[in-house]
């Protein structure tokens, strides 16, 4: 697989997943703003934007949040921006991804225009989640499990681990009591799975445990970190130079085992710090993957002066 194409696939995976999770996260946030009578809106908004590493200027209103995270074009943090970027990457890798996946991404980009700032955001979020599901469904049904699939899945698992960590951070936003654990579980589509697995009412520790380290649920952080590690092993195959991808696996593995082997109470006591650790591990792994697979060993440029 060409390095350039692999990089595009990796980012398609990340962007679509990011759009999906941003939609989930915003949906929860807007609900909290509605339901929490003592909410301090500007600081809740500002700290949400901080969680998403978005710069804020002035007072952060609901409109600011929606603009920056939902509708802005040309932004790597907004839903519209990431969906458009996913489509551009798909165009670059057009000959590798299947026609169905391409058309669904292309249609998604085109239909984005229908959703204006004014329309009801909840419907927009539902639509975004549906589109992401269509893309994943089609790609899983039409892609050979070769490197093309691996790189897309790698991007997707990394992004999902990262975004769930950010979602859990919203539990401790400034200016609001934040969403309760039932809401968080619901927003990860995890509530029913939780009830079936745990067979008990939602308690803070059990719920956190489920979203952090459940080995079977596909939206727990540990599950996705583990998945990324497995895929890295598969991509590497029997190849020689393992140093860099080995380091990427190391970063992910350390973050995962930290979650798995720490008492859940400790993690909850320092939820923000711990979740930032997860995000940092994902970022490190992403950089190492880029260095290992996407950057050419040495770029040859033809220098006119040398003639």
């Amino acid at each position, binding site marked *: *697989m*060409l*390095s*350039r*194409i*692999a990089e595009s696939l990796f980012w398609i995976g990340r962007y679509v997943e990011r759009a999906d999770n941003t939609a989930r996260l915003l949906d929860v946030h807007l609900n909290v703003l509605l339901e929490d009578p003592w909410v301090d809106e500007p600081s809740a908004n500002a700290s949400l934007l901080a969680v998403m590493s978005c710069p804020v200027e002035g007072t952060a209103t609901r409109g600011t949040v929606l603009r920056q995270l939902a509708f802005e074009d040309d932004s790597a943090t907004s839903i519209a921006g990431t969906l458009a970027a996913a489509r*551009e990457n798909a*165009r*670059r890798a*057009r*000959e*590798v991804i299947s*026609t169905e996946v*391409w*058309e669904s991404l*292309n*249609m998604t980009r*085109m239909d984005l225009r229908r959703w204006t700032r004014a329309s009801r955001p909840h419907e927009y979020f539902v639509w975004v989640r549906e589109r992401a599901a269509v893309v994943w469904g089609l790609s899983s049904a039409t892609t050979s499990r070769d*490197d093309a699939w691996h*790189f897309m899945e790698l991007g997707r698992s990394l992004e999902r681990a990262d975004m769930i960590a950010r979602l859990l951070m919203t539990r401790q936003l400034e200016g609001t009591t934040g969403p309760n654990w039932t809401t968080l579980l619901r927003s990860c589509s995890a509530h029913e799975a939780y009830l079936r697995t745990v067979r008990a009412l939602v308690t803070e520790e059990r719920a956190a445990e489920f979203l952090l380290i459940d080995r079977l649920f596909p939206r727990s952080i540990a599950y996705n970190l583990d998945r990324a590690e497995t895929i890295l092993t598969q*991509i590497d*195959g029997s*190849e020689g130079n393992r140093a860099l991808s080995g380091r990427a696996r190391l970063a992910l593995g350390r973050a995962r085992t930290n979650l798995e082997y720490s008492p859940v109470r400790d993690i909850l006591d320092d939820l923000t710090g711990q979740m930032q650790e997860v995000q940092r591990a994902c970022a490190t792994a992403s950089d190492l993957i880029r260095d290992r*697979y*996407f950057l*050419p*060993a040495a*770029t*040859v440029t*033809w220098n*006119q002066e040398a*003639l």
Partner: protein
Amino acid sequence: MTEEQDATPWAGYAPSAAWDEAVDVEGSVREPYSRVYAEIDRMSGDDLYSRAESLASTYLAQGVTFDHAGEERPFPLDIVPRVIGADEWEIIEPGVSQRVKALEAFLADAYGSQHCVTEGIVPRKLIATSQYFYRSVSGVEPANGVRVHVSGIDLVRDQHGIWRVLEDNVRVPSGVSYVLSNRRAMSQMFPEMFGAMGIRPVLEYSRRLRAALAKSAPEGVDDPTIVVLTPGVYNSAYYEHSLLARTMGVELVEGRDLETVNGRVYMRTTAGRRRVDVIYRRVDDEYLDPVVFRPDSALGAPGLINAARLGNVTIANAVGNGVADDKLMYTYMPELIRYYLNEEPILPNVDTWRLEEPDAREEVLDRLDELVVKPVDGAGGKGVTIGPDASAEELDRVRAQILRDPRGWIAQPVVQLSTVPTLTEDGLEPRHVDLRPFAVHDGDDVWVLPGGLTRVALARGQLIVNSSQGGGSKDTWVLGGVRHRASSPPPESRVELSGMSPVPQSAHPEDYVAGQQQQQQQQQQGGASC
């Protein structure tokens, strides 16, 4: 039918002075179009427009686009197909194939011993002054002798219905992707006609091209790695590059994905370097290799030409082909066909004045307002001046250009391109078209894609059909495909033919035998309520 006579989309269709391919001067429908005419006749105008709309929206969804002035636009496809009868194709196909063989022979000669010059067919000056004659590639011997792997010979039909060659394209002819996607869209739109008309298929193009490229691989390579080299996602024909790579099942690379080491070409993959044997390049000569051509080019890879010279990689189409599709060289093509092939040209040229000849130049300068003047190296309709439509200023400028650089221009009479019914805002109207059949040369045979790209000028009376000048396209149907539709065999033989007992499709055990259980459950409910 309750529909009134004047409600058919054909009402008001009136051919202009040019040859109309659907309707003759008396207003009766020409034979190849009879079926299409009847089919559209049965529709209402609204139906036709709604089909055209759904055609446009499938193109948007599929991302069939071209980049114009930095903007990604859907490629306009007209709803009315262009039909070419089997008898006409019997002229075009051998004509194109003959032309390609002559071009191939000429290129081998021009970059070899130049017999055509010593025998006095072509002036030496003509080759030497061609902008696209590269001495740097003389001596680069293509592996199986093919330089023109893919060519597009532009044809037009004049006012008498005679097919003529308008220009040759043997550098990087584009447009074949639109032939393939037009066909896919149209066959979904008019399944009834496809069933009945026997239209020759175009889908084998990718397979043919791949086979031809594989045959051109350097000697000793059994299973060559083929790549398509694109300038990048912002190129106007990017859609085509990716479609060809996809349908051939090969990698689509950009210049930065390639590197040359010790005269061999590699691409950078996630698993390290991989050797490349054949490059179907869609990058122009001048950008291909900064070592030999433009040093500032980032679209190619340094060292490609050297690798080709060493015979380690095949570049298709070959570098330097531009000397053959120079429009001044075009005027020598009939003689070159006679010289190399010992045959009479099947497809005539359009009459052309060579402006380096003083008599011709004088005549052209006198009649500038009724002629078409074209640059010899132009593409995409750039720089073309149509005398009757030009202002006095424009004509003066052209006159000055010709006097300054007579080698750079040719003049032709205005050819009234044939017209084909086309859906416009005012209903069906005749619009001018040309045809670019594509030919694939694999070293043994020249295969001509049955059909080709029909480009249509969407504005009334417009004679330039290029998509960069706001033209659209039509699906081109060549009739006379062999049809294998055996009459249905008697039922008993069908059972024997299959020769096997069918495997039953199973289901959840309770789903289709649950009648009893359901009844029992219902009865029990009934019993309880009693």
